[in-house]
């Protein structure tokens, strides 16, 4: 039996909620805000569903909506930044030091400005190329490169990378 348009939307939501939620969560660092971002994104996708499902990459479009919802969420005057609600869970294999390590790394990521943070998530979690990130964020590849470079320099310092200075310009080096 052929699926209806509504059924295909339901199936799409079911299939991609987990991965898109994780993307939203990595950017917001907050479970409930990630939920809000994703739900708002799904509402938008649903509003244009006939056009979206006809696209070559409907998931790519949905991901783009999630990222833009995240950016616009930050623009709302009522939103407040929270760096405190990152949590750990299952991939934990019982080694406390590992939890501390990836929590520490991601806390540093959450201290980045929002566009740099989005670039880091798309690059290191979604494994996107600069061109794909540019397309998703609606900015030029050169701007992506600049955001990525600045973010990595900042993170190297925050994380106390032994070779942090090698990715830093001289005027920002620390000893």
């Amino acid at each position, binding site marked *: 039996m052929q699926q209806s348009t509504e059924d295909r939307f339901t199936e799409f939501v079911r299939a991609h909620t987990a991965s898109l939620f994780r993307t939203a969560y*990595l950017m917001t660092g907050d479970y*409930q805000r990630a939920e809000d971002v994703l739900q708002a994104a*799904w509402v938008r996708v649903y509003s244009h569903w006939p056009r979206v499902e006809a696209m070559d990459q409907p998931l790519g479009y949905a991901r783009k909506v999630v990222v833009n919802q995240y950016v616009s969420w930050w623009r709302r005057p009522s939103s407040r930044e929270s760096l405190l609600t*990152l*949590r750990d869970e299952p991939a934990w294999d019982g080694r406390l030091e590992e939890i501390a390590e990836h929590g520490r790394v991601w806390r540093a990521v959450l201290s980045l400005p929002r566009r740099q943070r989005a670039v880091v998530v798309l690059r290191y979690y979604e494994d996107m190329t600069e061109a794909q990130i540019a397309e998703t964020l609606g900015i030029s590849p050169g701007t992506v490169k600049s955001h990525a470079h600045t973010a990595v320099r900042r993170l190297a*310092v925050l994380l106390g990378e032994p070779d942090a200075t*090698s990715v830093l310009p001289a005027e920002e080096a620390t000893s």
Partner: protein
Amino acid sequence: MTVHERLARAARQVAAGVTPPEMDADVVRARARRDRRRRASLTTAATLVVVIAVVATVIGGQDTAAPGLVEPAPAPSPLETVTSLPTPGETDAFPRSMTPEEVVHHPRAQLWTAAVAPGDPDTRISMWLVSCVRPCRERGPFEFTAAATTTDGYKTTIYLRPPFPLGVDLHVSTPDDGVFLISDQSNGGEWLVDTHGDVRAVTRVDSVLRPSDPRLWFQCPGRWRSTWCALDVATATAYSWPGEWDGSAATPASGDRPWGTNPKPRPTSLSGKLEAWWDATDGRQLRTLTATTEGDYILGSPPGEMAYWARSAGGSDELVIYTSRNRGEDWQVDSRTAGPELSGYLAMHRSPDGAYLAYRSYPRLVVWRAEASGGPFRKVYEQEDERSPETSGAGLWVQDDLVYVNANATAAVSADDGLTWTTVRTWR
């Protein structure tokens, strides 16, 4: 592991560690319909406002001195979110949260940062984190933080929710009785937390203030490395001293001119040499003391004395101390036996009697001591529990006759010039 590998790994682990919510497509459809209705009613309301305004203008004629004839339409209520519901009985504005007291006493609470007031070891602050490795029962899957402060060794406690992130290089010191200064050395923020639980964000200004109380001086993040800030507790203002003090081991309170190690942009670890710099009447002077990748200044040196330490290149078991008491004209070189275990990311500070206290915080907090007059460095303190969370905000402070050190959620106090130490164990 490179920073790129660490980021990719952390992203995967954090993402894998979260349980996505069930997202009901029918709820999405209902919200989409409601949004459409709201947009339609907002359009109607806006049209109505325009019509009323036009009518009022017509009725009011040219009398612009009579405002207020038109009642503005009520503002639309904000969009409601149809996501998770608050836990029944939860009174906090942010649903599915824990109170600070609940966080501190949670069975899985981790002690993240701890500090004692040197002037009164019963005055303490501790910061706690609950990271739910499974969703916290009826609380939702979050990470929660809280601080607990006391003036009687936690017989009574004030709990609060810190407005700053934990674990990102926090230094905690005591600038005044009953007040803790939290300095985020990575991100550059400072906060004052008093023992009543009040928290104030500190405003940083580029200006000069010279307080007489040495406790009011603290090292704050500068453009190159740490610079010196003077704190005004009453107004919660940190006065960041001018650029020449950036990287200086001497505090402006000492009366010395600035001196330090390796001027910008040459860190010892990259340049392969320990350089001493000091400001003189004819400008900044520079001298290479030795070839090494491990070395730095010694904090707490007496006024008029510049002191540096270095480990010789090639993994020597000796630490060498370089001292000048006449602004670089003459240098004394003093080799001390240190042993192979005295290694890692070391820092050094003088004790109240002038002894050398070397300490490191990774993988556990260890303190070594050598007499000022000579002799080897000996281990005088070692943190017991290596599994404590690693916080890089390690520090060693001297106040009057007390020395205290903290790192990795451990704090220890010495009242005999760093010879013996007492670990403070009660933190909640």
